[in-house]
């Protein structure tokens, strides 16, 4: 009977205790645990290879389709890919489908450009090597308009400067001039990018998605509609490993691992408790 009482007690444990346990599982590894070996998975390798196949001078369009609520997962992906793109001398054109994502994308751009200059002596110039076109509302219309002429909607950059004054935009008019699109999204915009930009215009897309959105995108990867997929913080860590620039993703892995172990234990205890209580209680 004591076992039943104990298990029943576990079933009624205050949820705040579970919150506290998860908090500790995240906090403690930050001080004591080291990141183990990270093995990149095939979808992440495909994304890396898609960027790597571009030639110097090719255009990588980056769409920031997330805001602060998903930044911890997607920012590490963005920064790792920007490192790779700038080191390969790709031209980066940033845009976004969320107004609140615009400053986040610009902060990462500035950080990577400054890091490359200070640590590697690689100088990247705004308007020549990269540009931020900003955000325009009505994302289906935006994706379709870029297929026709980018200037139909983006006549100025995020600082209201006319884009025609920037050398980078001289030869960029529509998807024909874009080598690859990177969509960093925390919602359904990846469906729209795939269905319109890839389905209608045939442009290649890689996606960096939050862990919640990633499972739904595997069907696109399987069908060849995506050229690569980076899912969640684990995907970000794998991409950082491939690029050789450890960042937020790699740093978060110990906490991620320990919190997952905790939840697995809790799920096992919960289920064992349920079945044992049911079995013993029935006797």
């Amino acid at each position: 009977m004591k076992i039943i009482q104990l298990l029943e007690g576990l079933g009624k444990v205050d949820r705040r205790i579970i919150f506290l346990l998860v908090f500790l599982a995240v906090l403690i590894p930050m001080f004591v645990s080291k990141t183990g070996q990270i093995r990149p998975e095939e979808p992440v390798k495909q994304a890396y290879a898609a960027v790597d196949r571009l030639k110097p001078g090719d255009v990588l369009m980056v769409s920031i389709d997330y805001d602060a609520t998903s930044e911890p997962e997607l920012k590490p992906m963005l920064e790792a890919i920007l490192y790779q793109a700038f080191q390969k001398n790709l031209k980066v054109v940033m845009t976004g489908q969320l107004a609140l994502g615009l400053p986040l994308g610009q902060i990462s751009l500035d950080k990577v450009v400054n890091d490359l200059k200070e640590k590697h002596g690689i100088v990247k110039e705004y308007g020549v090597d990269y540009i931020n076109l900003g955000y325009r509302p009505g994302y289906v219309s935006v994706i379709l308009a870029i297929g026709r002429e980018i200037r139909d909607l983006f006549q100025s950059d995020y600082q209201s400067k006319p884009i025609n004054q920037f050398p980078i935009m001289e030869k960029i008019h529509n998807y024909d001039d874009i080598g690859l699109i990177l969509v960093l999204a925390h919602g359904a915009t990846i469906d729209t990018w795939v269905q319109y930009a890839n389905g209608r215009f045939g442009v290649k897309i890689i996606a960096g998605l939050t862990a919640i959105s990633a499972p739904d995108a595997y069907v696109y990867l399987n069908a060849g509609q995506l050229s690569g997929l980076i899912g969640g913080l684990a995907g970000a860590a794998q991409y950082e490993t491939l690029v050789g620039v450890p960042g937020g993703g790699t740093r978060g892995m110990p906490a991620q691992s320990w919190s997952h172990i905790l939840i697995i234990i809790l799920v096992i205890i919960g289920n064992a408790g349920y079945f044992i209580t049911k079995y013993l209680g029935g006797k």
Partner: protein
Amino acid sequence: MAQIIGTWFAAFLTLAILSFLYKDNPIYKAAEHLYVGASAAYAVIYVYFFDVKPLLLERFANSPVLERWLLVIPGFMGLLMLTRFIPKYAYISRIPISFTVGMGAGLGITAAFQGFLIPQLQSTLIPIVVWSTNGFQLMDTINNIIMVVGVLCTLTYFYFSKPHTGILGHSAKLGIVYIMVAFGAAFGYTFMARVSLLIGRVYFLVHDWLALV
């Protein structure tokens, strides 16, 4: 100095939001309202200065006569949408809403076929037994069988024109197993996403704010 104030303010707001996990409280509500208000204000200002002003107002002022009057149509439709704020005339807003729904449906149907249904059908039409120049491919064969069986069984689960008995019943039950596996994967990924956000905030607190790591 500005950065220090910003970091302390962000830390306060983070703790204010996390305090909801203990109990709903006025500090949490204040932080939540601040977030909603600031986000809405930012979006309104941004849309006006980067969309309405350059693409409607300035283009109207600088365009040739014909294009200028064409711009009146979307501008007028936009104004009609605002009648929703006047209960007596709110019905007028149905006109631009109808236009948007019609356009969305038209675009959505073509996109669904061209960008989703046909590519997904193509990706399911795969050989059950895989042979390549290197001979029989066991793992690819197993993967393809799992996928094709999964598609067929899941589809039969959603076939309601006949009772789920006999072969159809067995197939539908296997379909449930596939759906449950998908739900389990989604749950695992969801937990990973939520913990990632917590990691981001905790790292901000112990690194940027308290400088402990």
